[in-house]
């Protein structure tokens, strides 16, 4: 398996190279960036996979502390889930606007995406401070340790994505829809959709299943 994965990029470049003349030199570079970013996402996916496995193993050990049914407010999680889902589709709209070379539309939809992301972060912060306030800290039980690591890591990713989005908005304002900026928007788009995908696992395993058990 490792042989196949390390061979693929080489083969890919060997095939792609002859197709492009001088004017398409940047395309080669762009595909390389997208490939590299995709591999980063896949490695990030492995990190989350390990955190999910940790939660699946430790999630039932409450150490006489609170259980998910005592702590989680599913209505709040539903709102947070939809905030993230809406931010995914609005980022899709931003990419579509970018394809039409509409700078204003791209920036507008990206701002809306950022607002939904901020809403998600606000709800998560509210939940965490509430849990902390009632004594459900990571120190209380193995369940809470693995919960805070998994959900917290996802939250930090969303925070990182939001900061990236703000930086990208500044870059778009300065340089417009240049070739580099289009590539950056596509990378952030992948990252943002990926975070929404991880969240599906979080609400299915941690919140919904946790409350049922």
């Amino acid at each position: 398996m490792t042989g196949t994965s390390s061979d693929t990029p080489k083969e890919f470049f060997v095939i792609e190279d002859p197709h492009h003349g001088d004017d398409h030199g940047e395309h080669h570079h762009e595909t390389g960036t997208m490939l590299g970013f995709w591999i980063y996402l896949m490695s990030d996916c492995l990190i989350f996979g390990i955190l999910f496995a940790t939660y699946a193993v430790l999630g039932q050990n409450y150490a006489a502390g609170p259980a998910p049914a005592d702590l989680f407010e599913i209505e709040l999680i539903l709102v947070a889930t939809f905030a993230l889902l809406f931010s995914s589709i609005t980022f899709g709209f931003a990419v579509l606007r970018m394809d039409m070379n509409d700078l204003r539309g791209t920036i507008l939809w990206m701002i809306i995406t950022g607002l939904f992301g901020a809403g998600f972060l606000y709800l998560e912060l509210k939940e965490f401070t509430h849990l902390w306030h009632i004594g459900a800290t990571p120190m209380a039980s193995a369940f809470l340790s693995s919960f805070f690591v998994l959900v917290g890591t996802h939250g930090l990713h969303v925070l990182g994505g939001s900061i990236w989005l703000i930086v990208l908005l500044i870059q778009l304002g300065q340089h417009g829809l240049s070739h580099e900026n289009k590539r950056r928007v596509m990378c952030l788009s992948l990252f943002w959709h990926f975070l929404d995908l991880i969240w599906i696992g979080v609400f299915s395993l941690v919140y919904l299943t946790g409350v049922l058990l």
Partner: protein
Amino acid sequence: MSDHAQGGHGTLKSYMVGFLLSVVLTLIPFWIVLGDVMDSTGWAIAIIFTLGATQMLVHIHYFLHVSLKVEAGWQVMSLGLTVLLLVIVMAGSIWVMFNLDENMMPAHEQIERVRNLP
């Protein structure tokens, strides 16, 4: 170059289809939990996980635009490798730790067992 770039971005229609499918696939599991509609917890969890996995596939197809085309084969290849590693890590840890739980009985049960020996 332009057709390559367009091919990776999707269309308004594909985004809307993905979005609507996601909304339905999100609402059903939340409805199951909030409405308390299932008698059997095991079945409810099975449905939640099936719908979650389906929604992940929807996202991969409609939002991440992973395609099986040859020129984008590296995407599918690396995704396949990641899924394989994930399955090994997750199924492996859950299996091993479950067995450990089963076989390492709490101390009081062991004391009870020794007491009952003939």
